[in-house]
C-alpha cells in the first residue's frame, strides 16, 4: 500500500507527472476534448496557394464511436453531393454521376491541398496510435505517438498538448522514413456549446508543398448519435437526409 499511496500523493502534487505516467489516458482526454465520440459538424476547408488564390469546400460530417466518420460535400457546386465514408482503415468516395462508392486510400485527398483523406475523415487518435513517450515542457506536454498498424496515414506523430486545456496546439506528422510530412496548428479555442470547447481553426503546412497552406474552420459542432447504418455504403447517396 505504501508505494501506491506515495504515487497518488505524487500525482496530486505533480499532475504533469501523473499524465506522463499515463500518456494513453491523456490522449483519450485529447480525443474527447477535441470532439465528442458521437457528433455532427460543419466545416469549411480552404486550400491556399502561395499567391493567395484559394479553393474552398464546405463539408457536413457525422461521427460515431471511435472509428466511423462520414462527410458530405455541400459546396462548391462542382463537388456537391459527393460523400466520403470511413470505417476504421476502410475509406470510400461516392460521386453522384458515377453512382457507386469506390474505395479510396488515406493518403489520397478528395479536396486536394495539404489535407489528405485521413485528416478530413479523422478518427480518434487513440484508435490509430500508441503513446510511446510523454514529457513536460513549460505549459505543454509533448506526446510521441506511433501508428498501431501500417494502414495509418502517418507513421509517427509529435503532439504538443496545452497542459491546462488538454487540447493539441501543434502536431508534426512523420512518414516511416522519418520525413516530416506536415505540421498541423490548432488555433482559436472556441466554446461551441453543449460542453464542447475546442480549436475552431486547424491550419496545416508541409515541407512537401512549400508556400501552400490548408485551413479547416469548424462551425456547429454538436453531440448527435445517428444509427450505425449511416456508416455504410448503402447510405452514402442519402447522407443529405441527416441534415436538418
Amino acid at each position: 500500500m505504501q508505494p501506491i499511496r506515495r504515487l497518488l500523493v505524487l500525482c496530486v502534487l505533480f499532475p504533469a507527472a501523473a499524465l506522463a505516467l499515463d500518456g494513453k489516458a491523456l490522449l483519450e482526454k485529447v480525443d474527447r476534448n477535441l470532439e465528442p465520440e458521437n457528433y455532427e459538424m460543419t466545416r469549411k476547408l480552404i486550400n491556399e496557394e502561395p499567391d493567395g488564390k484559394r479553393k474552398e469546400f464546405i463539408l457536413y460530417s457525422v461521427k460515431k464511436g471511435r472509428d466511423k466518420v462520414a462527410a458530405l460535400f455541400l459546396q462548391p457546386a462542382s463537388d456537391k453531393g459527393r460523400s466520403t465514408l470511413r470505417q476504421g482503415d476502410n475509406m470510400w468516395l461516392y460521386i453522384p454521376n458515377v453512382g457507386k462508392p469506390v474505395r479510396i486510400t488515406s493518403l489520397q485527398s478528395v479536396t486536394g491541398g495539404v489535407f489528405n483523406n485521413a485528416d478530413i475523415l479523422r478518427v480518434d487518435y487513440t484508435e490509430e496510435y500508441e503513446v510511446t513517450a510523454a514529457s513536460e515542457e513549460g505549459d505543454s506536454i509533448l506526446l510521441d505517438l506511433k501508428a498501431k498498424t501500417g494502414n495509418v496515414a502517418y507513421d509517427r506523430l509529435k503532439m504538443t498538448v496545452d497542459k491546462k486545456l488538454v487540447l493539441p496546439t501543434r502536431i508534426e506528422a512523420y512518414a516511416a522514413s522519418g520525413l516530416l510530412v506536415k505540421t498541423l496548428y490548432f488555433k482559436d479555442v472556441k466554446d461551441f456549446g453543449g460542453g464542447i470547447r475546442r480549436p475552431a481553426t486547424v491550419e496545416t503546412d508541409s515541407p512537401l508543398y512549400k508556400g501552400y497552406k490548408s485551413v479547416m474552420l469548424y462551425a456547429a459542432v454538436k453531440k448527435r448519435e445517428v444509427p450505425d447504418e449511416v456508416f455504410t455504403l448503402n447510405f452514402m447517396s442519402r447522407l443529405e437526409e441527416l441534415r436538418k
Partner: protein
Amino acid sequence: MRRGAPGRGLGGALAALATLAMAALPSAARAAEYSFDLAEVEAKPYEISGFVEGKAEHFQLRPDASLYPLNFPGQPPRQTLDRGTASIELAGKLKHDMLTGYARVSGSAAHDAYSTDSSARLLEGGLRISPAEGLSFDLGKQVQRWGKGYAWSPVAFFERPKDANDPQNSLEGFVMASADWVHSRAGPLAAVGFTPLLLPVSDDVNRDYGATGHANVGAKVYLLYEDTDIDLLWAAKGSRPQRIGFDFSRNFGTQIELHGEWARSIGATRRVLGADGAVVSEVQNLDSWLLGARYLTENEITWITELYRNGAGYDEAQLATFYRLLDQAFSMGGGAQAQALAQSLAQSGYGRVNPGQRYAYLRVSAKDPFDWLYFTPAITVIANLGDRSWQVTPELLYTGWRNVELRARAVLLQGDPLTEYGAKAVERRLELRLRLYF
C-alpha cells in the same frame, strides 16, 4: 528595460499600443480573412444542381475503315469532321419527411457537317421512401451501378454499358422498383445489405433492356467482411438469360486497392458469324471476369489497371470475319441482304463498344505535377489483347476556377484494318470540353 518602459511617458504608451495593435493584427486579419457563414449551406427541402457543357471535337476519319458505313450510313466519305455540342444536365430533389422525389434530366444539341441533332432524356426520376437509415424503397427510373470495375463491370446486370473511354459519365437508368436494406454490426462481418429489384419490360417500358413481356427480378447481397467489400449478385431469367456473379474490393495499406468481378450468363445465346458466311446461334454459359488495382504513389500519381475477359466477346478471327463481311457488304458489289445481315450482327454484339474477348486497361494520372496547380494530366491506354489493337488517350484537366472544369484530350486509335481499333471509323479525335457547374 521592461520596468523602465512605462517611464517613457506618452511616447512609450503609444509605442506599447502600437506593439499591441501589431500583435493583434494577424489574428484580426485572419478572422476577417477566413470567414464561414453557416447560412451559406442551410438545409433546404429542395435542391437543384447541374452543369452546362460546351464541347468541340475534331475527328480524323478513316473512310475506308470497315465500320465507317455503319457509323455514317449513306453519307459521302470524309477525311475530317468537326462537331460542336452544347449540353445541360439538371438534377433536382424535393424532400418531405421520409419522402424524396428526385429527377436528373439531360439535353444536348450537336452540329457537324453531316447532321444537326438534339435530344432530351430523363436519366433518373422517381420517388424514394426512407422509413429508416437502414431501409429505403425506390420507384421510378433508376441507375443501379453494380460492380467494382472502373472501365468495365461484367456484373452490372441492370444498367446500360458504360463507356470505358469516359466511365464517369452519367448513365440513363431503367424504370424499376427496388428496396435497399442494410444492417451494420460489430465483428468481422461489419455490414450486411440486401437490394432486391423488379424491372418490367413491355412495349412501353424498358424496351431497350431486352425481350418484352417479362418482369425481371434481381438481387444483390452486400457484405463488408474483414475489411473487404463483397457483393453477391443475381438476375433471374427473363428478358435476358439468368446471370449470377460476385465482386470484391479491398485496400492493402494506405496506397493500394484491389478489386475484381466475376459473372456467369447461364444458357446465353451468342450469334457467331462463321468464315463461310453462315451465322450460328450458340447457346452456352458465358463467363466474364475482371481484375483490377489502383495504386497511389507518394508523389500522388494514381495508376489504375484492369484486365477484362468478356465472355460474350469475339476472338481475333471472329472479329476479322465480321469486318470482312462489312467490307464486302458495303463495297461496290455489296447487296442489300449482306448489308442487312451486317447491321443485324452489329446490333447483336459485334457492334458493341468493346466486342472483343480480352482487354487491358491502364490509366496514369498525376495531381498537380511540376507545381502545375489544379492541372491533372493523364494518359489512358485500352488494348484488345486478342488482335493487339489499341487506343491511347492523353488528357489534361484543369479545375483551378471555381465550379469550372476544362478538359482537353486526344484519342488516338491504332491497329491493322481487320482489328477492333483499326476497323473503327475514327482514327483520331481531339476534344475540348468546358463544364460549368451550378
